């Protein structure tokens, strides 16, 4: 026994160290994924018995206009939420200077990320309020008509994304600020000597060095876009008439809300959401794998 351990210590030790993590990960992540995939083939109200109905939930999904509205909104979220990355970069570049009290300004810029999404949602709901909101007071001042952004099916998703961009930009800014600290001053010097300034300096000298920060910023922003649940719940509850729902919210409504409790249907929506996430997860894993190999 002792000799077996001795001979294979190097092989076994990592697995012993990994075991608790693997156990937890399987129990709380892997197992539930397969559980919800299997649930999506059943009809179940969370109380009675489950009935196997094959792919009927998926067939229903294909015929469900609310599902496609949610899917479309998810795509809009994914695309527009990425604006937080360049916005964060410019905020970081702007704040990356040595002026008296710069730490205070940095804190103020970072503030929206520290406060809860619920507060952000409430603040923006008031901002958009059709009768007393700041936005409409400004619009009226310039002679425009008032507009109830959160009650217009064409604007509501953009209104919520704008609210989400506020804290997300702050987050990306912090990532870039730390990244900027590690930019090599010698390379900047060298760039100066070669007459690079402004945009060219940013594009060819600074940005390549910020690649790790950009990668993290994109990843967290995409994750943030896919989890855009709290803001929607606080600001509109998915409305008006379901036009601001995303898949995660629709899944919640179908499975857990007051009028839902169709667990199988909710699980089917979750599976679709998982497939979308898999695209990104695969991209990230590939990227990490390549980096590891290269490094």
């Amino acid at each position, binding site marked *: 026994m002792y000799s077996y351990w001795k001979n294979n210590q190097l092989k076994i030790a990592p697995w012993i160290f990994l075991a608790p993590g693997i156990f937890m990960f399987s129990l709380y992540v892997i197992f539930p994924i397969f559980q919800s995939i299997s649930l999506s083939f059943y009809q179940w109200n969370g109380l009675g018995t489950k009935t196997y109905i094959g792919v009927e939930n998926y067939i229903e999904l294909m015929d469900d206009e609310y599902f496609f509205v949610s899917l479309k909104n998810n795509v809009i979220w994914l695309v527009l939420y990425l604006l937080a990355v360049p916005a964060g970069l410019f905020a970081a570049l702007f704040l990356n200077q040595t002026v008296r009290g710069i730490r205070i300004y940095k804190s103020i810029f970072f503030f929206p990320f520290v406060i809860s999404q619920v507060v952000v949602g409430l603040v923006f709901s008031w901002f958009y309020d059709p009768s007393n909101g700041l936005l409409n007071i400004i619009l009226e001042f310039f002679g425009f008509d008032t507009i109830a952004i959160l009650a217009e099916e064409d604007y509501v998703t953009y209104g919520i994304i704008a609210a989400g961009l506020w804290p997300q930009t702050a987050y990306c800014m912090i990532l870039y600020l730390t990244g900027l600290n590690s930019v090599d001053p010698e390379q900047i010097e060298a760039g100066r000597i070669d007459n690079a300034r402004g945009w060219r300096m940013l594009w060819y000298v600074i940005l390549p060095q910020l690649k790790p920060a950009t990668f993290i910023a994109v990843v967290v922003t995409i994750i943030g876009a896919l989890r855009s649940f709290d803001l929607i719940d606080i600001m509109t*509850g998915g409305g008006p*008439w379901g036009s601001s729902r995303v898949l995660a919210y629709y899944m919640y409504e179908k499975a857990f809300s007051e009028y839902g409790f169709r667990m199988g249907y909710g699980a089917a929506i979750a599976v679709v959401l998982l497939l979308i996430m898999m695209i990104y997860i695969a991209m990230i894993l590939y990227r990490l794998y390549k980096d590891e190999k290269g490094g």
Partner: protein
Amino acid sequence: MKKIFKNQIALALAGILAGTSAVAGTLVINGDTSDPAPKAAFQAVIDGFEAENPDVDVVYNLFDHEGYKAAIRNFLSADAPDIAFWYAGNRMAPFVEAGLFAPIDDVWADQGLYSLMASSAPGMTMDGQKWGIPYTYYNWGVYYRQDIFEDLGIAVPTNWDEFIAAGETLKANGITPITIGSKYLWTAGGVFDYLNLRTNGYEFHMALTSGDIAWTDDRVRATMANYQQLIDGDFFLENHAALSWQEALAPMASGEAAMYIMGNFAVAPLKELGLDDSSLGLFQFPAITPGVPMAEEAPTDTIHLTAGAKNPVDAKRFLAYAARPDVQTAWNKALGQLPTNAGAGVTDDKFLNQAFNMLNNDAPGGVAQFYDRDTKAEMASIGMEAFQEFMVKPERLEKILERLEKARQKLY
């Protein structure tokens, strides 16, 4: 962090204790009376019960009103209390069908409730048995600015033409006829209910909400045409889809709007906003189709014996206590609502007296629960969303009705 953890342990322990120590005499009640008035009112009921039954110790687990709707599904199947709060009508159907509530016909018989609670009995009946005790209900109706109506010389409308004329007079004076906040959808369900009850009557309405009638039926279209008349006539508050029902109270209080199709629970906040018995009034939603008997909406709140109750004997004693006329009188006085027991007294209040009279004498057609309690849950959310959409985009009527019909065929 540490403190939270400690509390969690305490909670978990409490749960274990409550779950295992079914010592005779402990009665566990789970409820959602989280607002101040209902909370105090129910505490008084518990105190009264304990005073009369010193051998019973009541443990009351109070849940947040919204969170309760999700929690009840878990605790009923996992670790059931003896008594749980819920609602009458179709809302209790899933629990009855899943065998999580227990029938209490014996309590009804012992207390003589078949006659004393005759009006709320249909809402508590499934499979020919009684599944709970209704303890309170409240009316819906048109709450209006009595002072504004008087100033403009508008008489309380009793039919559709008068109602439209009243609205036109209000608009001519720069006042929005009807305030509403449809962000959380159910307010639109109330408007639809009344229009349908008045256009087609109670029987039709109940058949429609039970899924027996197509949404593309001409009679539904007649209701929607009346709805559209109000929408096209700009009767409703602008931007209502962005407002909650509470936010829609403000225009009413300030006099920018003059009517609110609402439940009795709107009276208290309106009075807090400065209205009183002389400026705020209530009238019954006017008749639309002549000859259709007037029907009303009056959602009923209930308490139930659970199937997993560990102390069903004391639970039934409590249910009997909660059904008693004197208890219901005091309880509903504290709630500002109406008792379900015909032997109980109604608190002397302008709105409650009027509502009591309306429900008992002027609603020969019948009493509906509410759109989201009379229909299946999933149909209710699709339906109320559709009403909200219709109120903003009435031109989509055809598409909306087809969508509702598709949902009906799938769900029923």
